[in-house]
């Protein structure tokens, strides 16, 4: 081959390779997500469904290993599960700083719900082929969740930045609205939702007008206490609650209400659904793990279910009268063996078979002799906190939310609970109505609602109007609703948080540090830093 030919071939070869270069080589390829521009009517349904999903997820847990820290902990009915020494931030209100993890996570969770709602609302108009009724219902549902998130925010943190549109560019300059402005927005969203969602939607688990009414009644009841309340707040709260009550009759007994096989009963107004499909179940309901100590460290008991951490206070257990049927359907005083054991208990040898009593928590204290002769572990009411050689806390465990077929799972892993999580039921509507009437100085009407609710629990003696005060209602709320609704928000609303915590939360009382600045949580430090200081801290933090 001639020399020149080699050069030509070589150069052609190289040029050919070089020319294949073009920008398409650097285009990104995507099989894992869709573009926003291609949104269709179906996408709108998905955006709305996501608001349901994320609201459910952040209710069942805040983050892996972080559950319900801001609902019941640090109140009169729930405390930390440890000896009465040392300190804690959320429960004991000691060294409670802006860097607290749980309050930071809760804040961003609620804003993610708000952002999801805003995305659905804002995109509704951009999506073609969306029929008007679907659009109206979807926007109404989104606004319901947005209102619920802002209600949680304003009660926990005070006035917070009001973000009502989808954010598409990186902005940082947010400022806090006043509490009153947030309430105005919450009420407005709920009124919009009330006019657009269906009275009784076909699909179970979606937002109905009664769900909106129930939340609205609670929001108005709460605003009624504030200095910017509107004069009709208590009466409106009562009236919405009464509508809900009339549409949702109570189950005949408390046992039926909490029966695993009777989850979708008339009393339920709104619930998050989980189910057995692992794809749509998400993290799973975690409430079956609530308020359980390490009972499986005792002989005869196996690891059937994990507990989450906090424990009910001794005060909580003292609230139940002997014939209050709610006690038995809420917690267990007897734990039965799930495995055989032969060995020593109370200093004598015992043989336990599956089904025998393994632990017992008498309502009235047993004598030392009586305990010593028992073939199982007995814990008196005064000994719920204190070392017994096996655990440091031990108390009747909750059974109200039991999900018996779910395996023992560590708290940082998907809980997989399949049971519906009831968020609103008319049992609470009775209590909202009672409180709203009491605040309108109508104790008689309040007593009527309380009597009805209590008689369902087997307490048939009518409540005397003169006995009804806020403490009565709060005690009743504790018996009826502990674990279901935020106790902290109830106490804050009724201005009883500090007194009740100091009176009944043993750890917080031991440290004796709670004061009025704790009526608001600290604004997360990251939010202050990342907003360049435009978001300001609450007083005292």
């Amino acid at each position, binding site marked *: 081959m001639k020399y020149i030919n080699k050069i030509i071939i070589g150069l052609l070869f190289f040029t050919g390779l070089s020319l294949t270069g073009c920008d398409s080589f650097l285009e990104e390829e995507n099989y894992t997500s869709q573009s926003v521009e291609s949104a269709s009517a179906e996408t709108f349904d998905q955006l709305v*469904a996501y608001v349901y999903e994320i609201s459910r997820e952040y209710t069942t847990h805040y983050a892996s290993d972080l559950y319900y820290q801001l609902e019941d902990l640090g109140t009169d009915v729930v405390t930390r599960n440890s000896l009465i020494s040392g300190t804690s931030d959320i429960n004991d209100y000691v*060294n409670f700083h802006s860097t607290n993890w749980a309050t930071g996570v809760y804040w961003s969770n609620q804003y993610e719900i708000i952002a999801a709602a805003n995305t659905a609302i804002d995109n509704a108009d951009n999506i073609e082929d969306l029929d008007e009724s679907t659009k109206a219902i979807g926007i109404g549902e989104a606004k319901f969740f947005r209102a619920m998130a802002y209600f949680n925010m304003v009660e926990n943190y005070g006035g917070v930045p009001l973000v009502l549109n989808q954010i598409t560019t990186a902005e940082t300059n947010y400022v806090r609205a006043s509490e009153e402005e947030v309430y105005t927005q919450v009420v407005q969203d709920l009124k919009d939702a009330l006019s657009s969602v269906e009275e009784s939607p076909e699909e179970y688990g979606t937002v109905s007008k009664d769900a909106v009414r129930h939340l609205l009644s609670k929001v108005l009841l709460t605003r009624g206490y504030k200095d910017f309340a509107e004069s009709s707040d208590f009466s409106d709260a009562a009236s919405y609650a009464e509508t809900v009550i009339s549409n949702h009759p109570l189950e005949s007994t408390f046992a039926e209400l909490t029966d695993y096989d009777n989850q979708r009963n008339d009393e339920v107004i709104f619930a998050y659904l989980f189910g057995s499909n692992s794809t*749509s179940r998400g993290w799973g309901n975690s409430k079956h793990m609530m308020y359980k100590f390490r009972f499986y460290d005792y002989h005869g008991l196996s690891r059937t279910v994990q507990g989450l951490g906090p424990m009910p206070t001794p005060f909580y257990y003292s609230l139940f009268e002997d014939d209050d049927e709610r006690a038995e359907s809420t917690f267990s005083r007897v734990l039965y063996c799930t495995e055989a054991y032969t060995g020593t208990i109370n200093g004598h040898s015992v043989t336990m078979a599956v089904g025998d009593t393994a632990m017992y928590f008498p309502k009235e204290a047993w004598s030392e002799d009586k305990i010593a002769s028992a073939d199982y572990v007995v814990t008196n009411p005064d000994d719920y906190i204190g070392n017994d050689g096996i655990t*440091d806390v031990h108390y009747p465990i909750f059974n109200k939310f039991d999900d018996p077929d779910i395996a023992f799972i560590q708290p940082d892993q998907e809980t997989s609970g399949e049971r519906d999580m009831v968020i609103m039921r008319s049992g609470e509507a009775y209590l909202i109505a009672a409180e709203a009437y009491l605040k309108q100085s109508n104790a008689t009407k309040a007593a009527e609602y309380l009597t009805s609710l209590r008689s369902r629990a087997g307490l048939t003696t009518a409540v005397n109007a003169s006995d009804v005060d806020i403490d009565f209602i709060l005690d009743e709320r504790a018996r009826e609703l502990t674990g279901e609704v935020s106790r902290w928000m109830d106490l804050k609303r009724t201005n009883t948080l500090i007194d009740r915590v100091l009176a009944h939360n043993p750890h917080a009382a031991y440290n004796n540090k709670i004061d009025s600045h704790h009526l608001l949580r600290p604004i997360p430090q990251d939010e202050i830093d990342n907003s360049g200081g435009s978001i300001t801290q609450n007083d005292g933090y």
Partner: protein
Amino acid sequence: MLVFALFFGISLSSWGQTQQITGVVFDENNSTIPGVSIVEKGTANGTITDINGKFTIRVQKTSQFLIFSFVGFETQEINLDEQTSLSVKMKPAVIGLDEVVAIGYGSVKKSDLTGSVSSIDHRDIEQANKVDAISAMQGQTAGVVVQRTDNKPGAGGFNIRIRGASTINSNQTASQGGYNPGSNPLFIVDGVFFDDISFLNPSDIESMNILKDASATAIYGSRGSSGVVIIETKKGKEGRMKVNYSNYFGFKQAYHLPSIQDADGYVQYLKDVVVGNEYATGNLDYSTDDVDLTKYLSEEERKNIADGVNTDWVDLILVKGFQTNHTINLTGGNDKTVYSAGLAYTRDEGTVEGEDFSRYNVRGNLSSDLTDWLNLSVSNYMTFAIQNTGSWEAFRSAYRLKPIGRAYNDDGSLRYYPIAKETQITNPLFEADNITKETKYLQWVGDIAVKLTPVKNLTITSKFSPNIKFTRYGEYRGLYSKSVSGNSENRRAQVNNYNYFSYTWDNIVNYKYNTGDHAFELTTVMSRYLERDEEYKVQVRNFTTDSYLFYNLDAGLNIKDVSSDFEKQTLESYTGRINYSYKNKYLFTLTGRYDGSSILADGNKWAFFPSAAFAWKIMDESFMQDQTIFSNAKLRLSYGQTGSNGEGGGLGPLATQSLLGSSATNINGSAISTAYVTGLANEDLTWEKTTEINLGLDFGFLDNKIFGSVDVYNRKNTDIIFYVPLPTVTGFAGTYDNVGESTNKGIEISLTTVNIDKGDFKWTTNFNFASNKNEIDKLYGELEDITYSVQSSDLIHRVGEAIGSLYYYEFDGIWQLDEADEAAVYGQTPGQVKVKDLNNDGKIDPDDDRKVIGQVTPKWTGGITSTMNYKNFDFSFSILTSQGNKIYSSFHGNAFSYDDNPSRLFNGYDVDYWTPDNPTNKWYQPGNGGSYQNAIKYRDISYTKIGYITLGYKLPRSILDRLHINNLRVYGTVQNPFIFTDYDGWDPENAGRNTWGGAFMSRTFLAGINVNF
């Protein structure tokens, strides 16, 4: 006429005065060397050795000397001394100035380098004799800091930092390894890009060249900002077939174990905890005499104590791991074709049962000149590896379990719960039989290259190099593993399949031009890189038996997770480099690279990275000829820019776009698809840039008895790609943006000394030292601080401080009994950890009393390798050191677990802790650490480790000749035999890693042979 006659006569007489000299040339291993150049001194007369290392040359009878030279060896003059048959032994060139250094798309002689490049050649790697390629780099060169993050065999957990961290990030870069800011360098094995080189058998490596400064890495533009490690595997060499076989066998032993309590110690510790709990509440009158053990110990535990149960759980789980390697390599060829092929097997077992790693390597390459203008080469490197990590719980459980628990039942069978009431921590001896965590991968790396030489000095090369890796991870958790805890519903099988494909396609034009004093070399490259990942995961739970492991997923009743993923990214670049030298004294290199990356925002995908470097061979100047102090002197100066597309900061494909992701929820009992916005788009996101100036001096003194180099550098990073947090009010945690600036300044020194070179004895030592100072110059906006936490270490990005600065309260001892009143001011009691009240305002608060208390990156690092040869014996050792860093130690963090709950108290750290009778400042009172106890858990992790100590013996020629073997060496070595450190946890190198999945530091005793035929 007379003149003519005279001349003719002399010529004739000269011709008549020649003689023939024959001989053979050997290397230091007594292998013959082909191609050695032999010149009659003072003439142009010369020859080279043939394939068998033999030569014949006719020289003047008056000639006294022959000069022997060959790349990689010292040039030597041999005095003929009337001999006509010579046996010449070449000594390897220690200084290696003639060695060829890979610099990316080409190579230069070391003496012609303009940038900062460190080399590790196969001799260093063979001498280090490590199981994996990265360990072989550790401590070998200045400024290359290798942190082993995982002690399990076969785990690729390493952090490698070349000249410190540049990018700001808070993501962990090696799985579970403890925080180390910055990113690993780019590895290039035979021209192919890699993030990890654990697939390589170290014996297959010919050389590792580490490109450090920006002029050296500029040829890799976008990917070079964290340094580049160019690895060449062994290639064929002209000559008869040579066979090299090496092996080793040995065992591994855990050492440097932290001390924990035995049974008696535990009971005392428990009592001290109870007292501590009382002290915590302010009750200083309580003493160990008041402790009622029945409140904290069950009837079973008290009986065990009475029975003298004293279980050493750590000792029970320890085993001696076996380690072996066999490598066989063949190489040879003729003047047209060279080939190389090899096989290797490596087995490395851990110090806990169930931990093992097996690797099989097959490789082969062939290069042939098909015509005088066309060369074709093909190479293949195949690795099949199986890694079992064993249980991730056994190690941790052994430290948690009480020594008063029983490992065995009375009948000798294993007890699942060593104490009935402790249902969290199960007997670790069950783990090996109940846990399978097996990763298998098959990786094939190959290339096909065509090289054209259309005219002299011009080469055009097109090289296509695919890299294909199929990985399967299989996990099974049996009934009696800790996480299943005897609950069959939690039996878990998981299978993850990954398939990875990437290719690099380089088209390289190289042209050399020499005219008189001027020499040019021009290289242009067009390169494309594509990387594509697929991932499939399935997890199923609830099996009725353990017998299927993960091979029968359909037998599980609960499908937990089914997912798949796809990722792709591409890079395209156009590069040019000109090397110019004048009189071979003044060397210039200019490099420019135009780079495009798919993962950056549209419109910002492309960037240009220039660099320039200059070197001056001072030694070759005439004024240096008369002095005798310097034997080498070369000055190097470089300036350059490189870039990063943000992968080190966590940017991945699609991350600059705002897209709709999908998930699902349950409405009305049905699965409903949901859609959410994945993130905020940043359409302005562009390249992160690194600009670096490097000044280096290569020197040699006293006839090169001392030689080395010093480099100083200043590296500035700008437009750092960082996930900037936003107020979550937006609904997003943050977005990627170009923010911030940082600087690394440092000095690197390498020094080789020939301490003794007399007769049969030679002793040489290599030292290297590097110190790097890192500083953040700017964050975003007006922000001065970003605080963050990684693995319990509280950290801060603060302007003026190093990336990876620890930010916490300053430890100030333990509150003593006579300080009770002062302690009370701070709400503390005697026995607790005291921290400094920096602003003296009578309270400790996070804003005013936290400060930078150290950094996680070492302040300086160094290494020493020393070799002594005496006759046929060789003795060598290496030392590496890392100084001046701290981290939140996982061991110390878990030292007193559950000391607020004496009923559950885990076993504890056997340390000289505070009690009312022992007023020490070393460690706090058990059960009474106080709010700032973490301050004592930030530990200095400086260490000095001995890398290896090796003694070898080469069999003498007389025996070898009879066996027809070129060379045979037997040796014994201890790998990682000793550590010198104040750190009393496990391994200071990975003190920050989670104890879950931890493994012991170990030493290995090995013996082996190297044979050449």
